[in-house]
């Protein structure tokens, strides 16, 4: 009897599990005892605790944990670094370097957060609001647009017009 009861409970639990399961956002985890070589492409959030060499691309968030080592160029929507990165980092929105971060390479982002204690050997570039996401100012545009690196806030430009 107890067996029947438990199986009934299980079946209920299982159907609840399936109901709660949504097509999940993929979380890629590179664990501390794993080495990855090559082109690492992901469409979800990525957490790196181990070693990666090659290139890393993700459409979402990338977190490099303390103890992790990346020897690769990195592209992501936003990046938080607590470990070591040897390579350029390019983020569409934010790069955050925590006190334990060590970056040897150029970084490029819209928003940059560097905590005291973080080490950065490389150039910084900020993506302007009207710049292309690859960071290159488009040549051959009107004089006003091509000249300055500084981007006026959109609201001001619209008001003037």
């Amino acid at each position: 009897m107890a067996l029947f009861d438990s199986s009934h409970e299980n079946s209920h639990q299982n159907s609840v599990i399936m109901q709660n399961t949504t097509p999940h956002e993929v979380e890629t985890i590179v664990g501390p005892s794993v080495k990855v070589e090559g082109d690492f492409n992901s469409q979800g959030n990525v957490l790196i605790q181990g070693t990666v060499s090659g290139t890393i691309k993700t459409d979402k968030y990338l977190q490099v944990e303390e103890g992790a080592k990346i020897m690769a160029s990195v592209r992501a929507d936003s990046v938080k670094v607590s470990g070591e990165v040897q390579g350029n980092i390019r983020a569409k929105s934010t790069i955050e370097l925590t006190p334990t971060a060590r970056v040897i390479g150029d970084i490029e982002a819209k928003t940059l957060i560097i905590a005291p204690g973080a080490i950065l050997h490389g150039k910084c570039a900020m993506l302007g609001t009207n710049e292309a996401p690859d960071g290159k100012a488009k040549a051959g545009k009107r004089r006003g647009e091509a000249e300055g690196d500084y981007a006026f806030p959109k609201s001001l430009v619209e008001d003037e017009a």
Partner: protein
Amino acid sequence: MYLYLYDASLKERQYERVISNLETQMTDLGITGKIVRLSSLLSPKQIISEELRRSKDLKTVVIVGDDTAFTKIIQQVADLPVTFGWVPVGPKTDLAERFGLPYGAACAQILSRRRIMELDVASCNQFYFFDFCHIPLAGVTMQLDGSMTIRGDAEKMECFIWNVPPTNRSQMPPGYTPSPYDRQLEIVLMPVARKTIFSSKMAPPSIFPFRDAKIILDKPMAVNVDGNVLKERQLNIQLLPKPLRLIVHRQGDTKAI
């Protein structure tokens, strides 16, 4: 038109009543069809292919049996262009319950409603798998999607590929839930951090999504693919380009419709 494949184990007397109730329900609901009782000499793939050749009206193949029967048949026929139904009857029906399929005759109602979901199916060497693939502790090197190579620092790793969330969720890394609807697979690597005489302590897991994986083991190991054990040294695991169409119950539906 429906084709019903009855698992060989259902010949036992204890299932007579369940089967007769099921057949009554099928008649009442107007979903009767050809019944084939499987045996070790009959290949499900051959039966379905022959029926497809004979009749163009064959759209649905219903497997009547438990988890083992279903996964065993799916391993051979997942690539055929039909919609599958499943009536769980037999000793172990956990997997069916995860899709909200009730035991025996009660499932006829669900078949008649025809709520079809497209589910991921993968192939592991020559077999298809629907539920899971488990590689025991071994020295593992793998290449995912032809672009990256993964090696473990540790001597040995245990690998899991779940397509459907398992009943015992404690095996899975916290926060991770596999989905059979996401058109990709994930491999979970659990390396050994410390080995003692009696047990092995596992290091934090790694999870990699993929569609195509080539896994090389240091020696031939007993790999469990949906309950069937293959002894292999090299595994080619691929997500099938066409999903499996399965009639499921609304409760088991993981997509919000």
